[in-house]
């Protein structure tokens, strides 16, 4: 069965014109040779930080950015090869929900007009029929008649997002692109939106392209995940596999950096040094090599290919498939928090209790506990971290 959406070797470069002569001097390598597939009805998450290209990929799919190279094949048809008319019709099938609920809805329009817009643009519905359809969509997202004539600024963030979802559903698309749909929302509201999205997917069977930076959310909603760094996929595969047993140093660093809400599990903060480099002059070879704790001689020279390994995973790294990453199990027990109690300070202005304790690497090896229902998260770099702290 051919996939719903297939992206092949997608490359998107932006030119920045500098100088008086306006000759294009710099090229932003936003996306380079990305290949992905989404099956009908499944959820693929794109994960990455700024500069990773995840938003650019989404916009290319939606037709908001033009690809520099590569193909986007939707339902078997190459989008670039379609004529304008056909493309407009094809675009019905892919809709979008943006991150900021307020700016994604025109402030001057009423809710009815917001949701009716796609219907007016692509169907012949009007009058009472249009209103009925709008109401139907509103009810699908848990809103009602009383909301029809209000304006977006009168609603809460969560409600606005639901309106945006209702609008996205209007044309019965096969794919909905969600660009960080819950990042701007409170935790309790976020949960509600995610539940709604999942239910709608179950009922109506569309696929989601879910862009997120919150790995916990990704784990909750996505079937497959692709991790992006500086415009390229570094690792992808089934969510459980990639997030529970990550094999790319960047994925591991990402997981390590996410602060866990469980104070008894210690996230190794500050594990990855430096900033994401500029996309104008990406590092040679493997783009992650300047920040990678496991960098080898070959890494700056040759870019690793994205190859299939076991379990449906794809990995782009020169390390061997069975490379033994140093495990760090976050220690159980309270002494992590207790060690930071002010009472244990020796002098008035903050001593260094950590100097008296074994560094996290050693401590975790001693106290590896699997007492909680949480599985171990394996992360690298403790060596680098420890040497940093021993000043």
């Amino acid at each position: 069965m051919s996939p719903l959406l297939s992206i092949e070797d997608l490359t998107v470069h932006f030119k920045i014109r500098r100088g008086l002569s306006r000759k294009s001097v710099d090229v932003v390598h936003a996306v380079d040779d990305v290949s992905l597939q989404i099956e009908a009805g499944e959820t693929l998450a794109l994960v990455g930080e700024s500069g990773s290209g995840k938003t650019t990929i989404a916009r290319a799919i939606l037709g908001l950015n033009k690809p520099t190279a590569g193909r986007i094949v939707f339902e078997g048809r190459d989008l670039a090869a379609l004529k304008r008319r056909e493309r407009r019709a094809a675009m019905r099938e892919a809709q979008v929900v943006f991150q900021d609920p307020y700016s994604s809805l025109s402030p001057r329009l009423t809710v009815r007009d917001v949701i009716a817009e796609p219907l007016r643009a692509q169907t012949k519905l009007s009058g009472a029929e249009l209103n009925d359809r709008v109401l139907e969509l509103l009810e699908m997202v848990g809103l009602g008649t009383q909301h029809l004539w209000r304006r977006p600024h009168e609603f809460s963030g969560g409600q606005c997002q639901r309106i945006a979802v209702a609008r996205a559903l209007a044309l019965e698309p096969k794919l909905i692109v969600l660009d960080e749909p819950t990042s701007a929302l409170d935790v309790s509201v976020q949960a509600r939106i995610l539940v709604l999205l999942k239910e709608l997917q179950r009922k109506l069977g569309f696929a989601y392209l879910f862009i997120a930076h919150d790995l916990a959310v990704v784990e909750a909603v996505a079937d497959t995940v692709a991790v992006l760094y500086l415009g390229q996929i570094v690792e992808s595969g089934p969510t459980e596999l990639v997030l529970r047993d990550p094999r790319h140093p960047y994925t591991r660093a990402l997981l390590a950096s996410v602060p866990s809400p469980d104070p008894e599990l210690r996230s190794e903060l500050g594990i990855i040094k430096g900033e994401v480099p500029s996309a104008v002059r990406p590092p040679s070879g493997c783009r992650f090599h300047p920040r990678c704790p496991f960098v080898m001689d070959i890494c700056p020279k040759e870019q690793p290919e994205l190859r299939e390994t076991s379990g449906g995973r794809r990995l782009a790294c020169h390390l061997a498939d069975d490379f033994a990453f140093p495990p760090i199990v976050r220690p159980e027990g309270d002494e992590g928090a207790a060690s930071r109690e002010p009472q244990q300070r020796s002098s008035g202005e903050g001593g260094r209790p950590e100097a008296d304790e074994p560094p996290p690497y050693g401590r975790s090896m001693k106290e590896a506990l699997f007492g909680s229902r949480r599985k171990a998260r394996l992360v690298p770099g403790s060596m680098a971290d420890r040497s940093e702290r021993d000043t």
Partner: protein
Amino acid sequence: MADLLEIRDLRLQFNSLRGTVKALDGVNLTVREHEIIGLVGESGCGKTITGLSVLGLLPRPQAEYTGGEILFRGDDFLVKSEAEMEEIRGGLVSMVFQDPLASLNPVFRVGEQIARVVRLHRGLGKKEAREAAVAALERVGLPGSETILGSYPHQLSGGMRQRACMAMALSCDSPLLIADEPTTALDVTIQAQILRLLLDLRERLGIAQILITHNVGVAAQACDRVAVMYAGSVVEQGRTAEVLKASRHPYTTALYECLPQDKKAEELTTIPGSVPDLIDPPSGCRFHPRCAHAMEVCKDVKPEPTPLSDEHWAACHWVAQQEGVA
């Protein structure tokens, strides 16, 4: 450990076109020397306003404090004059905000901005101020190099900008730093670096911090103690592990349950209802309309803090009942 800052029963309201917003309804918060306390809550709960109140950054008379005290080492900030508060800001207490780009003046170089703060508070000459700026930058993990001192804010990355803001805030060795969502606008790996920096600052320099955040993970990993706010008051406070893992207040428990960690979408829970309108808030305990354990008294009387252990308390009638105190 001595109390560095104690906020007692702080009440604040301000007038808006639609009515009086009762923004703070009796906030109780203590910050000890050299500790990091997290102020956690969802949007609209008043955590930022509390932070701004400490520094007197809310415009009066629109912001009307109707009760309470803000005691810094015993000294009430609420009754101080503007001139006195100016001395205190950046001196005894500093603050960093969410958006570092908005906190830095785009037309001045970073080095100049830091040096200016130092000159203002310590009256140093140009050369010494520059040296102090270099020292400030190094304190936050940025090399005090010409490159950074001479850069304009937009030339630095997000993480570096936030560090520069912190350097500015700490340039006069404030014993207390209030950080209002310092990492929300940053990438997650940079966020981790900044949190590590905050912890470092506490360890190396003993700077106490109020870390305002809506991200429970940030609070869990970077804070010694946590105070949870809802609709204008602190509902639970205590050591991080106690408040998050052994939470007693129904809101804290529900909030923690909403987190998507290790859950499939189907397993996600939500809190019924929505955040109240602070112009016409619910009577008594403001959480009662959404609370699974609401009792009659919750509608009428605002609950007082019930002590649960030496550090841990929760302001809830149901908890009080369980403790046999009510």
